[in-house]
C-alpha cells in the first residue's frame, strides 16, 4: 500500500504532540510495510531539520520518501504568531514579501496549492492528512488524483481554544472532516467532540488510540534531583495555554500546600498564559513553592518526569495526552483529567474532572502522604504502559485505509 501523507515536522525539531504523533505513526507504518510519501512543511530557519538523515540514522524507514515544502506554518500556530514569524523571516533572510502568504490563512491556502503539484507527481493509493492546516492540501490532492482521503483529527479547534473557536479555522476544520472519506480520531473523547461540534456521522469516525515508543534511551536516565531530598515534587508539563489547565494547577498547588508544606510544584513549558500563572503564584503567596522551568526538550523532558513524584495533567480538553504515557514510561504515576483521551486507555491512573480543584487536591495530598498508594500506583501503571507500542496504532490505521479504499471502489 502507498500513502501520501500530509504531516508535520518530526521531533526533536518541532515541539508538541503532533510532530511526535506523525513520527511515531510513520515508523509504525513503515514497519508494517506501508510505503509513505511524507509531505513535510519545513521552515526555512530550521536548517538542522534534516529528516532524511534522522531516519537514515535509525535505519528503520527504508520505505519512506520525504517531500519538503517550504512554509512557516507550525502546528498550533495562531494568526498573531504567524505574522510575527513572517516578520522575523523577512528580516533574517531578506526575503521578498511574496514567498509566503501575507497572513496565516493565505499561507495555509498557498500550502494547499503546492500540494496539487506533489499530488500529481506521486504515486499512491490513499491520502492521509493531519489536522486542519493540512486538510486543504488533502482535499486538493484528492481532487487531482481521485484517491480516497482520510483525515486525522488530533485536536479540534474547540479543544485548543477552550470552547471559543476561531470561525475561520473551524470552518476549514469542518470542510476537511466533512469531505473526508473516513476520519481517524485519537480517542472516543475526540470522536464525541467531532460529532457534537460538527455534526459528523459517527460511523465515519474511527478511533485509533496512540501508542508510545516502547524503548527510548531517555527512559533509563535514572535522574534524581537534589530537590527530592526535602520535598515531594508535583509536575505540570505542557503548553501553558488554556487547553492544558495551568490555571487549575496553580489553584490546586495552593490548596495542597494548605495541607502539606513539604511539596514543590514544577511547571514546565511555555505559552501565552505563562505570565498570568506566574502572577497568580505570587498573589497566592506560593512563589517559593513553584518553579517555572520554561520550555524543555529532549532529555530534559525525561529528567523532569523522573524527578517528579506525580505528574498532573489537568487539561480542560485533551484529545489524547501522549505526554501522560511518557510520564508512565519514566516510571512516574499520573493524575489526569477525565476530559482526556488517555484516561480512556490507562486504568492505573488517578482521574478527576479538571474543574474539581478540591478533588484534585484530595488525590494529590493522599498520593504524597501514603507511600503504599504511591508505590502501587507507580508499579501498576508502569506495568500497564508496557502494553503500548507503535505497531498497534499503525495496524489500526491500516485497517482504516483498507476500509477507505474499499469504500472508494
Amino acid at each position: 500500500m502507498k500513502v501520501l501523507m500530509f504531516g508535520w515536522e518530526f521531533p526533536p525539531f518541532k515541539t508538541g504532540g503532533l510532530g511526535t504523533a506523525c513520527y511515531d505513526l510513520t515508523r509504525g507504518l513503515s514497519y508494517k510495510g506501508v510505503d509513505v510519501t511524507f509531505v513535510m512543511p519545513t521552515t526555512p530557519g530550521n536548517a538542522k531539520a534534516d529528516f532524511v538523515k534522522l531516519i537514515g540514522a535509525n535505519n528503520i524507514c527504508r520505505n519512506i520518501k520525504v517531500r519538503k515544502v517550504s512554509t512557516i506554518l507550525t502546528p498550533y500556530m495562531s494568526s498573531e504568531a504567524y505574522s510575527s514569524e513572517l516578520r522575523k523571516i523577512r528580516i533574517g533572510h531578506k526575503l521578498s514579501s511574496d514567498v509566503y502568504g501575507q497572513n496565516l490563512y493565505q499561507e495555509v491556502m498557498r500550502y494547499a496549492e503546492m500540494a496539487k503539484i506533489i499530488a500529481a507527481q506521486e504515486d499512491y493509493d490513499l491520502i492521509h492528512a493531519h489536522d486542519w492546516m493540512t486538510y486543504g492540501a488533502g482535499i486538493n490532492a484528492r481532487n487531482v488524483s481521485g484517491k480516497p482521503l482520510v483525515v486525522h483529527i488530533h485536536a479540534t479547534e474547540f479543544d485548543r481554544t477552550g470552547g471559543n473557536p476561531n470561525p475561520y479555522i473551524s470552518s476549514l476544520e469542518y470542510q476537511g472532516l466533512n469531505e473526508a472519506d473516513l476520519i481517524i480520531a485519537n480517542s472516543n473523547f475526540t470522536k464525541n467532540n467531532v460529532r457534537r461540534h460538527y455534526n459528523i456521522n459517527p460511523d465515519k469516525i474511527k478511533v485509533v488510540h496512540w501508542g508510545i515508543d516502547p524503548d527510548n534511551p531517555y527512559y533509563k536516565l535514572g535522574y534524581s534531583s537534589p530537590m527530592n531530598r526535602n520535598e515531594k515534587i508535583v509536575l505540570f508539563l505542557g503548553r501553558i495555554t488554556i487547553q492544558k489547565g495551568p490555571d487549575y494547577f496553580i489553584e490546586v498547588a495552593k490548596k495542597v500546600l494548605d495541607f502539606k508544606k513539604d511539596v514543590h510544584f514544577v511547571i514546565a513549558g511555555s505559552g501565552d498564559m505563562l505570565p498570568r500563572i506566574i502572577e497568580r503564584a505570587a498573589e497566592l503567596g506560593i512563589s517559593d513553592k513553584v518553579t517555572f522551568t520554561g520550555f524543555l526538550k529532549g532529555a530534559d523532558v525525561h529528567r523532569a518526569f523522573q524527578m517528579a513524584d506525580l505528574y498532573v495533567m489537568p487539561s480542560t480538553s485533551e484529545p489524547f495526552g501522549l505526554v501522560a504515557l511518557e510520564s508512565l514510561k519514566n516510571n512516574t504515576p499520573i493524575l489526569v483529567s477525565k476530559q482526556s483521551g488517555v484516561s480512556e486507555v490507562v486504568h492505573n491512573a488517578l482521574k478527576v474532572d479538571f474543574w474539581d480543584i478540591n478533588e484534585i487536591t484530595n488525590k494529590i495530598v493522599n498520593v504524597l502522604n501514603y507511600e503504599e498508594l504511591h508505590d502501587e500506583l507507580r508499579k501498576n501503571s508502569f506495568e500497564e504502559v508496557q502494553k503500548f507500542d507503535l505497531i498497534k496504532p499503525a495496524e489500526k490505521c491500516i485497517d482504516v485505509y483498507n476500509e477507505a479504499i474499499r469504500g472508494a471502489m
Partner: protein
Amino acid sequence: MVSMCFYFQVHQPFRLRNYSIFDIGKNTNYFDEKKNKEIMQKVAGKCYLPTNKTMLDLINKHDGKFKISYSISGVALEQFEKYAPQVLDSFMDLNDTGCVEFLNETYHHSLSFLYSKEEFREQIKLHQKKIKSLFKQTPIVFRNTELIFNNELANFIQKMGYSGILAEGADNILGWRSPNFIYTAKTAPGLKMLLKNYKLSDDIAFRFSNRGWKEWPLTVDKYVKWLNAANGNGNLMNLFMDYETFGEHQWEDTGIFDFLRHLPGEILKHSDNNFVTPSEAIKKYEPVSELDIHSPVSWADVERDTSAWDGNKMQKSAINQIYLIENAVKKSGDKNLLEKWRKLQTSDHFYYMCTKWFNDGDVHKYFNPYENPYDAFITFMNIINDVNLRLGEKNILKKEVVV
C-alpha cells in the same frame, strides 16, 4: 444416597461516601445512605424478592423435601430493616416453613479473624444475637467471611461451641480427595467441615450465562446428570454460592429462575437423592478424613487465598490502620463510633482496593463502586484519619498509638 446441601451467602456492605480530605474533622457521616438505599432496593427487586418467592414456592411444592440454608451478614440484615423491610419479611416466611437454616458469621462480614480474635468473637456474638432475635434459630454451623479457613480458625470455632463449619473445597487442601464428604481439621476433631464443590457450584454461579463455555446453555437435565454422577463417590454435594447469583449476577433473561424452578424436582426424581441443611448434614454423615490447613484458604479468585483483600500494600496498610485503633475505639465508650469502626471492617472495603486483574478490568470491577482501587484507598484513609481525629479529641488515641 447423595444429599444436596445448598447454602447461599447474602451480603451487602455499607458503602462509603465520597469522603474527601476536606471532610476530615468536619463530617462524621461516612456512609453513602443514598447509594446504599438505591443498591439495596435494586437488588431486592431483581434478586432477593423474586428468589425468595421462588424458594418459598419450591419448598411448598416439594412438601418439605427441598431444604436450603443462608448466611445473611448483620450489615445486610440492617440494610433490609432500613431500606427493604419486605425482604426481611420474605426471609421470615421462608423461616416459618422449617426447611430453612440460618448460619452464623461475623456480623460485619469482616476479616477480624485474621487480625483480632477478640473482635472476631464479639462480632460472632452480635450476629448470633441478631439471628436469634429475627429467626429464633441458634446456629450450630459457622461460616467465616469469604469462606476463609485454616487450622487455627477450626480450633477457635470448635472452642466457641459450634459443631460444623463451611470451607472452600480448594484443590490445594484436598489434593486427590473429593469435596463430597465430611472432613475435619487436624486441630478440631469435633468440628465437621463441609467443603464447597466449587466446580458444580461455579457452574451455576459464574458460568451459567457464559456463552463461551462449552457446556452453555446449562439445562437442568444436564446439571442433574452431573450431580447424579457423584453417586457412589461421595455422599454430600455442597453447593455454595452468593445469593445474588439469582437475578443480579445472572440476570433473569439468562433463564436462571427457570433453571432454579425446575432443579429440585429433577434432583428428587432420583430416589437416592435428597436435600439437607448443613446441620442435618453433619448429623447424618461422619468424617472420612482429616485435613491439615496452615495458611488461610478462601473461595475467591483462582488463588483461593486472602490476596483479594490483603494482597497489596494499600490493603495491608488500610487493614492494619483499622485494627491499630481497636483498643482506642473500645475505650472511648462511644457506641456510635464503635459501630462505625465496625462497619469500616467489612471486607468489601478492602476488596475494592484490589489491584489484581485490574488491568484486565474483570469481575472485580462489576462489584466495585469506585473507578479504581486507588480511589477506594484514598476514601478509606480519609475516613480513618477522621476517626483518629475523633479519638484524639477524646485524648484516647495519643496514649494508644503514635500516628
